[in-house]
C-alpha cells in the first residue's frame, strides 16, 4: 500500500522542550493507524504536524503527496482536535452548517454526519448543554463533512461509553474500507487492537511501527500493554 502520510526526520520543540526527536514513520493509505503512547509522549504534536498547524524545527511531513498544511490539502484532510473545537453557543446543526459552508460540503452532508455520530436526537440542542462525550462527537462530525481522504483524530474516543466507542471504531473501519486513511491517537492500550497498524510513541520517539499482531509476535506477549512494556525494556537494555 502506498503511504498516505510520510513523516521524515520530524523534530519539534515546544516551550523549549524537545517534543518530537527526528521521528520518521509512514501511515499506509486506507489503514486505521493507531498512534499510541502515554500522555506527554508527543502524540498531539505529531498530529498537529500532520495537519500542518504545528511549527516544526526540521524534517518533512508529506500528506497525499503534498507538504502537510498546504492549500490543496485543507479540504482533503479532516482534523479533530483533542478538546472538542466547536462553538458552545451554537446548536449541533448550526455548528455543522457553518463548518459545511467552510469546507464547501453539500447541504445534505450535515444530516449525514449527525446521524453518523448518533446525535440525531440532539440536532437542535446547544452544544453548551451537551455532555462531554456528545461534544466530542459534534467535533468528530465536523471533521467528517465533505468526506476527507485523510482523517486525523486526536483522542476521539476519550470519555465515551463502551457501546459508542465500539460503534465509532466500526465507523472508522467502514471509512477505511471506503478508502479513507485514518490516523487515530489514543492513550488507551485496549484500543490498539482495533487498529490495522500501530505507531507506538514514547518520549518523542517511535518505539515500534507495525501491525498489532506483528508487535505481539515480536515481543512474545499476548496483550499490547505488555508488548509496549517489553519494547520499552528492550530499548533501555539496548541503550545501556
Amino acid at each position, binding site marked *: 500500500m502506498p503511504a498516505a502520510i510520510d513523516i521524515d526526520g520530524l523534530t519539534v520543540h515546544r516551550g523549549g522542550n524537545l517534543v518530537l526527536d527526528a521521528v520518521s514513520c509512514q501511515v499506509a493509505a486506507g489503514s486505521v493507524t493507531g498512534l499510541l503512547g502515554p500522555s506527554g509522549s508527543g502524540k498531539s504534536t505529531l498530529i498537529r504536524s500532520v495537519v500542518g498547524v504545528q511549527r516544526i524545527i526540521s524534517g518533512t511531513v508529506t500528506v497525499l503527496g503534498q507538504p502537510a498544511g498546504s492549500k490543496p490539502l485543507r479540504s482533503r484532510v479532516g482534523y479533530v482536535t483533542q478538546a472538542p473545537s466547536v462553538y458552545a453557543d451554537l446548536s449541533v446543526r448550526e455548528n455543522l452548517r457553518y463548518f459545511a*459552508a467552510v469546507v464547501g460540503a453539500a447541504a445534505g452532508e450535515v444530516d449525514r454526519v449527525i446521524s453518523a455520530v448518533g446525535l440525531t436526537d440532539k440536532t437542535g440542542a446547544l452544544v453548551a448543554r451537551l455532555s462531554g462525550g456528545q461534544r466530542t462527537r459534534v467535533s468528530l462530525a465536523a471533521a467528517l463533512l465533505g468526506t476527507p481522504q485523510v482523517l486525523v483524530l486526536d483522542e476521539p474516543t476519550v470519555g465515551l461509553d463502551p457501546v459508542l466507542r465500539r460503534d465509532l471504531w466500526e465507523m472508522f473501519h467502514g471509512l477505511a474500507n471506503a478508502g479513507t486513511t485514518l490516523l487515530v491517537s489514543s492513550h488507551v492500550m485496549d484500543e490498539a487492537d482495533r487498529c490495522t497498524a500501530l505507531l507506538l510513541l514514547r518520549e518523542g520517539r517511535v518505539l515500534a511501527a507495525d501491525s498489532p499482531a506483528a508487535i505481539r509476535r515480536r515481543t512474545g506477549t499476548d496483550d499490547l500493554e505488555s508488548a509496549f512494556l517489553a519494547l520499552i525494556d528492550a530499548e533501555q537494555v539496548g541503550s545501556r
Partner: protein
Amino acid sequence: MNTRITLATAGRVLTQLRHDHRTIALLLVVPCVLLALLSWIFDDQPAVFDRIGPLLLAIFPLVVMFIVTSVAMLRERTSGTLERLLAMPLNKLDLLLGYALAFGVLAVLQSGIASAVSLWLLDLDIAGSTGWLLVTALLAALLGTALGLLASAFAQTEFQAVQFMPAFVLPQLLLCGLFVPRDAMQSVLAAISDVLPLSYAVDAMAEVAGNPGLTGAAGRDFAVLAAFIVGALALGAATLRRRTA
C-alpha cells in the same frame, strides 16, 4: 477570498449573538439609557447635549464593538475553533471580514436605535443628516471591530482582553476632543490625539452633525478611518498564524 465563507462566518457570528439575548439587549439598550442620562444631566443646557450627544453616537459603537470582538476572537483562539478553521479551506481574510460584517450589521442596528431615541425622544438637535450620522457610526463600529480583532492576539485570557478596554480605549476617549477640543490641547497631547483612531471618528461625527451636507473635512476623516480599519485588519490577519508553537 471566498464570499460564501465570509457570509457563512458573518451568519455564524450573528447566530451566536442571537442565542445570547442578554448581550443583545445590553448592546441595544445601554447606549440609549446613557444618552437619556446625558440629556437629563444637561437638561438646562441643551446646547451642550447637542454638541456631546452626537459624539457619543460615534464613541459607543467603537467601544462596544472593540470589547465584544476582542472577547469573541479570543474565545475562537482558546477554544480550538480557530485552529480547526485554519486547517480548513478558509482564508484568514474570510474570517476577519465575516466578523466585520456581522458586527457592522449589529452596529447599524445599535446606532439606528440610539440615533432614533436621541433625535425624537431626547430632542437632540443636529444640523446634519441622519444618513451620514449612521455612516459615521458604522465606520466607528468597524474600527472598533478591527482593533478588537487585533487586540485579541495580545490577550491570553478573557480577563486580559477586558482590561484592554481601559488600557487602549480610555486614553483615546480622554484625548478625542470630548472633554477638551483637540485644537485647545497642549501641543504634545494634540500630537498624540492626532495619531489615535478614535479622534477621527469623533471629528467626523462633529462634522456630519454640524453640517447639512458632507464637508471636505468629514470626507478626510472618513478616509483616515477607512485607512485605520484596513490597517488594523491587515495587522490582525498577520497575527492569525496557521502554524503555532
